[in-house]
């Protein structure tokens, strides 16, 4: 017996030495043969969309995830989403790891395990002419921009308590949803300083040049390492630590630090002068005619059309029931309409995407895509508005029409189909198209749950390139073009209802 045990031990050691990872050392979440990683690709150089192709994920974190997958001999798959969506997704089991330039912080480690992989440092950055400072005291009373959804704000609040205790004015916190917008506030001169991580700033140095400079590198214990996050389960953390250690030993991590310019050597890179034009026409035009924008606009159009079509299907029976004499259905249907008209659409999207899977585990699964979630959410939301339009349109039809049809022996269904609906359509159409145009713009909210519609595409491009004006302008052109097309269709359709106007009544005569 002891001999057999020894043999096994030798065999295991031998395999490990030859670089082959035994199945026993693989974390349990790889059971399906895929490493699924949640990432928010708006944080170059860690994780971002490189180029005009939306599927071209790139960055230190992406390379690291691929290296891990190779190490474990599994395939790597990425789920891209908003920062706020990543940890709920991890908890919900939509991904195995969060690798997205996230700081190792104690508060997060209460809920998830973290394995550090890169040293980082918080930096306070100001405009190019600012003088270095040595403490937060020097920033008292000044504005400081930072990304929302991070814990920077909470950290600065504690510093503010200390400042106020010493009769100093507090630092004025301004939060923006993405890092590129944070930087933009300083470039525009709206804010004097922003708080960020050095790894990101190194990458930005080419775009920002000497327009900004690091004025302060504070010591902040919770902000000095980036970590991979995973669910607290079994021995997963130990297995991941071993894998990271192995990648460090074989030089993979060092190679990546070099490639992405995030190591210690990069710290002095800021300060290279570059010039930038105010509006770069070629960039705007190439964005306008890029596949990414075209696909984004198409996604916007498809989700709006699909949602509105479903909304009309849902709203029609509800409108008919609500217009009929009071029944048991009434309070429930009124509640439905009230709830979905009352709650903000953004909240409904976040609820369906992040909260629903906690009640019904079936929504964790990968078939429940951002598209499906958005479709369901906008269909229900829009149907609540459409109910009111349909009710008004049906009420506008003279009750004599029903009597007229009945007297001719037509069934109720035939009367609705051939008499009531065609007339109600004329009444309902203008407000319905107005609703649709509004819905077309509302779809931009779905960028928060990572639907790759027009605004999402725009934001990823801005995060990569920092060229706000050009990409915003390209998005604007697409939205306006789509809206104008539908306004034109509306006009055209209204002209077709000749039967409703006395002048048009004789049109068939000619």
């Amino acid at each position, binding site marked *: 017996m002891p001999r057999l045990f020894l043999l096994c031990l030798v065999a295991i050691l031998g395999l490990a030495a030859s670089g082959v990872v035994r199945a026993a050392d693989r974390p349990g979440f790889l059971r399906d043969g895929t490493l699924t990683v949640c990432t928010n690709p708006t944080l170059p150089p860690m994780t971002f969309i490189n180029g005009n192709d939306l599927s071209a994920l790139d960055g230190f974190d992406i390379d690291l995830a691929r290296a891990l997958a190779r190490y474990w001999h599994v395939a790597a798959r990425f789920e891209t989403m908003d920062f706020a969506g990543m940890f709920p997704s991890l908890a919900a089991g939509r991904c195995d790891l969060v690798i997205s330039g996230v700081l190792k912080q104690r508060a997060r480690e209460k809920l998830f395990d973290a394995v550090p992989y890169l040293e980082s440092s918080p930096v306070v950055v100001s405009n190019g002419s600012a003088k270095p400072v040595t403490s937060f005291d020097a920033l008292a009373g000044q504005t400081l921009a930072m990304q929302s959804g991070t814990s920077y704000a909470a950290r600065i609040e504690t510093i503010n308590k200390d400042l106020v205790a010493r009769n100093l004015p507090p630092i004025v916190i301004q939060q923006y949803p993405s890092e590129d917008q944070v930087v933009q506030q300083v470039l525009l001169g709206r804010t004097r300083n922003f708080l960020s991580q050095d790894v990101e700033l190194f990458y930005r140095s080419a775009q920002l040049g000497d327009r900004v400079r690091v004025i302060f590198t504070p010591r902040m214990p919770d902000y000095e390492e980036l970590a991979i996050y995973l669910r607290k389960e079994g021995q997963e953390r130990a297995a991941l630590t071993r894998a990271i250690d192995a990648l460090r030993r074989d030089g993979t991590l060092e190679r990546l630090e070099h490639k992405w310019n995030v190591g210690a050597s990069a710290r002095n890179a800021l300060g290279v002068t570059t010039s930038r034009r105010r509006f770069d026409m070629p960039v705007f035009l190439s964005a306008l005619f890029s596949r990414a924008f075209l696909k984004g606009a198409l996604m916007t159009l498809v989700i709006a059309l699909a949602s509105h079509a479903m909304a009309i299907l849902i709203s029609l029976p509800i409108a008919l029931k609500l217009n009929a004499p009071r029944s048991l259905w009434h309070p429930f249907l009124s509640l439905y309409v009230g709830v979905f008209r009352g709650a903000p659409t953004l909240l409904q999207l976040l609820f369906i995407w992040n909260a629903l899977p906690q009640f019904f585990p079936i929504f964790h699964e990968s078939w429940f895509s951002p598209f499906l979630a958005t479709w369901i959410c906008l269909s229900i939301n829009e149907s609540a508005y459409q109910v009111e339009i349909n009710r008004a349109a049906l009420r506008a039809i003279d009750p*004599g029409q029903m009597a007229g049809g*009945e007297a001719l*022996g037509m*069934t109720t269904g035939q009367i609705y189909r*051939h*008499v009531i609906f065609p007339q109600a359509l004329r009444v309902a159409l203008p407000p319905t198209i107005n609703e649709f145009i509004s819905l077309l713009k509302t779809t931009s909210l779905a960028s928060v749950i990572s639907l790759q519609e027009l605004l999402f595409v725009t934001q990823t491009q801005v995060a990569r390139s920092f060229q706000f004006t050009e990409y915003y302008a390209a998005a604007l052109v697409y939205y306006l073009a789509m809206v104008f097309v539908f306004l034109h269709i509306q006009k055209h359709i209204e002209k077709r209802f000749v039967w409703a106007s006395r002048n048009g*009544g004789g049109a*068939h005569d000619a």
Partner: protein
Amino acid sequence: MTPNSPPDPQAAISIRKMSKFYGDFLALDRISIDIARGEKIVVLGPSGSGKSTFIRTLNRIEPHDSGVLMIDGAIVDETTGLTELRGAVGMVFQNYNLFPHLTVLENCTLAPRLVRRAHREATEALARQYLAQVGILEQAEKFPIALSGGQQQRVAIARALCMAPDVILFDEPTAALDPEAIKDVIGIIDTLAERGITIICVTHEMGFARHIADRVLFMDRGCLIETAPPDRFFTAPGTERAKQFLAQLIHHE
């Protein structure tokens, strides 16, 4: 005929003690009458007397609550096929109730196509024939809104005729028309009467009633008060209420 005699299967319409309630309100109070095939009936009475309700029960647009309604020898109740009933008993409304989104011709062919599943060509030929009869064939391709009131009511009559009914109910067909149009529409109803269609007409046109009716029914507060040939009804009404009604009419005219 008495209220207690059995309904007459030979009559076009045979009614015994038929009542109708709207909630607690008694709209029709135990009406009994036989109407012969081809007979022209005019229903008179003050507003709110139940005239319209009465004729609407005959094609079950308003179902009656008690009593017996027999049409063409068959009892009408909740088991009656409404499609067949309404095919046999057509109706023309005060406000025409034409379908505004369809042309005159389509108004006439919609129900025959849907209800009778007749072919388009056959229904159109028939519709054009009836439109010619009511004198508006040249308007066939127009939408109702382009027509005058009198023309619209003629379309409504042609539309009802396209279902080839045995009985046509007229619910104040001339009430929304100007005097010139009234004459037209009355003339058309007259020709229908000559062709043997049973006609039951609610109206305030006394001249028309006198001219066309085989019998006048006088109603008040849901009750059938008096039934008489027009010359007797207008010259020597048998009831006090009919006398008052006629006196008021003369007063107004």
